[in-house]
């Protein structure tokens, strides 16, 4: 991709993939490519997107190479050196078990950056399926699912989390389940709205006249045309998923010890704040804040590029 900085509308130069020798101005796929490029150009000019991508990128690097970057083993306990204030030996101090807080903060990105995208992906897949079906078929299916969606949306996320924790026990799988249950209806509603506006177009009517089967129309014709909203919804929900998982971990229902998860670290140490031990709490708190803000700047940039 050499043409990142090109202004919008400048000709689509010989495509990057030489395998497709297309005429200069072709219909269909070429047009889609132009639109995609316009989106990309808009994204790269958006300061919020760049800032978000840099922050998220930093934490992804930490999640992958955390053990190499971290000055110490994030799981190694050292009771003699418990709760030491930040110093040159431990830049962020040590926690109640004498573990190096800096190392735990650096490696702490890993669990949440695995669990949150997985859970969001699951919810997006189910929500998209549900949205396609309810938006296309309407009638009874739409009505009854709509009521169910309303009912689920009326329950605060944390309560779904509490109930699932009681019913299923605390684990990472429970967290993914909670996120999927809570986000699927929200995503379904957005996708349904997008499908409703697509169904009016001629291409859907044409496909119906060609006697195509419903699954083909849904996934072959409509789905590619609603991918924009789906992508936006995914990034927005990813931010909420990180928010929710951090909160569940903080309540002790999410990612389980001894994982160096940030929410969990705060859960284990927030009672010590009034005793003056601020470092095992403040640094993970700043890490969570930077990650969620990064993801939301990113999704804000994406939605502004796509929704115009």
């Amino acid at each position, binding site marked *: 991709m050499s043409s990142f900085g090109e202004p919008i509308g400048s000709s689509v130069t010989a495509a990057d993939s030489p395998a497709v020798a297309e005429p200069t101005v072709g219909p269909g796929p070429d047009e889609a490519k132009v639109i995609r490029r316009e989106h990309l150009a808009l994204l790269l000019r958006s300061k919020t997107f760049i800032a978000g991508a840099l922050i998220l990128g930093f934490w992804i690097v930490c999640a992958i190479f955390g053990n190499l970057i971290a000055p110490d083993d994030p799981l190694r306990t050292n009771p003699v050196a418990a709760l030491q204030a930040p110093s040159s030996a431990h830049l962020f101090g040590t926690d109640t078990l004498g573990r190096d807080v800096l190392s735990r903060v650096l490696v702490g990105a890993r669990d949440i950056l695995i669990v949150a995208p997985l859970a969001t992906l699951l919810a997006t897949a189910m929500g998209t399926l549900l949205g396609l079906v309810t938006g296309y078929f309407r009638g009874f299916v739409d009505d009854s699912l709509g009521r169910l969606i309303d009912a689920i949306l009326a*329950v605060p996320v944390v*309560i779904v989390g*509490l109930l699932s924790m*009681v019913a*299923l026990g605390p684990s990472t799988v429970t967290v993914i389940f909670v996120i999927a249950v809570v986000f699927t209806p929200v995503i379904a509603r957005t996708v349904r709205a997008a499908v409703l506006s697509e169904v009016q177009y001629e291409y859907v009517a044409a496909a119906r006249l060609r006697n195509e089967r419903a699954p083909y129309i849904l996934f072959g014709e409509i789905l590619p045309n609603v991918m924009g909203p789906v992508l936006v919804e995914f990034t927005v929900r990813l931010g909420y998923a990180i*928010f929710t998982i*951090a909160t569940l971990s*903080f309540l002790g229902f999410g990612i389980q010890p001894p994982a160096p998860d940030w929410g969990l670290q705060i859960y284990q140490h927030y009672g010590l704040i*009034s005793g003056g031990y601020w470092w095992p*709490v403040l640094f993970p708190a700043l890490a969570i804040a930077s990650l969620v803000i990064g993801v939301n700047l990113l999704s804000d940039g994406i939605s502004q590029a796509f929704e115009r």
Partner: protein
Amino acid sequence: MTRFIAKRLGLGLITLWLLSVLVFFGTQVLPGDVARRILGPFASPSAVTALNKQLGTDKSVFVQYLNWITGLFHGDLGTSVATRTSVSSIVFPALWHSAKLAILAFIIVVPLGILGGVLAALYEGRFRDRLISVGGLSATTVPEFVWSVVFILVFALWLGILPSTATAPPGSGFLTQIEYLVLPALCLVFVLFGYIARMARAGTIESLEADYTRTAVIKGLPYRTVVRRHVLRNSLLPTIAVVATQAGYLIGGLVAIELVFNYQGIGQVLYRAAIQKDFPVLQSAVLIVGVVYLVATLLADLAYSLLNPRIRFESSS
């Protein structure tokens, strides 16, 4: 209008029923042997049988559900397994505590959020707008418990100007109580500000672009008057309606905040009940949260339709 209310009420009741089934299955059916779950693996089988009998969990699922619902309709929320006191003596004082916290937060955040949103809309696309929009979005996306610990650190530990718990000493006056509630309320303010500001901004931009605004400008009204009389009147209505729907979310956020500030509100009750497997308390507290949420959204819809004749007539036709 009556039909509109009846329809909304009906929908609310269906939602409430679904919620009750969800809660019931989550707490009483899925965990399997309820008494074993409460008493732990080392309790004697006879104690487990006795507790199951006392809780009524030895009967069939449908009988249990019916008993629970009938009890609710008679105002009997049951007895807490953990404290052996009636559930209503635990849940309702806690609800009042949470309400105090929520009211204080709303009094601060609603005017602030609307002001921020309107300012952002009037300066759309310029620096002030980006500052409010991006700043609000960032504040909203940081979890409440993160704000809680950061605020305690800054205001209670380092500056030492505000208490680090939310519970005022017993018998303290109104102002002291508020002083203790400021920090937790501030956490809610930070999380809600971005949301309200975004709604107010969208509504204001929409009515700034409307034909009646253009007409008012063209006929020579001063810009201030146009904004006050034409723009704000039309944009703030939907904002206020949306604000009310945040009640349910608020309660979710309260769990973490009340935990950090050690405040005996409904969020803390929910959390403790879940940890202690105090199912009668958990069931009632969840249902009450559901009722509060539904009543809040219903009132918001009603207020909105009363204030806005367009909605009222559309729904009746």
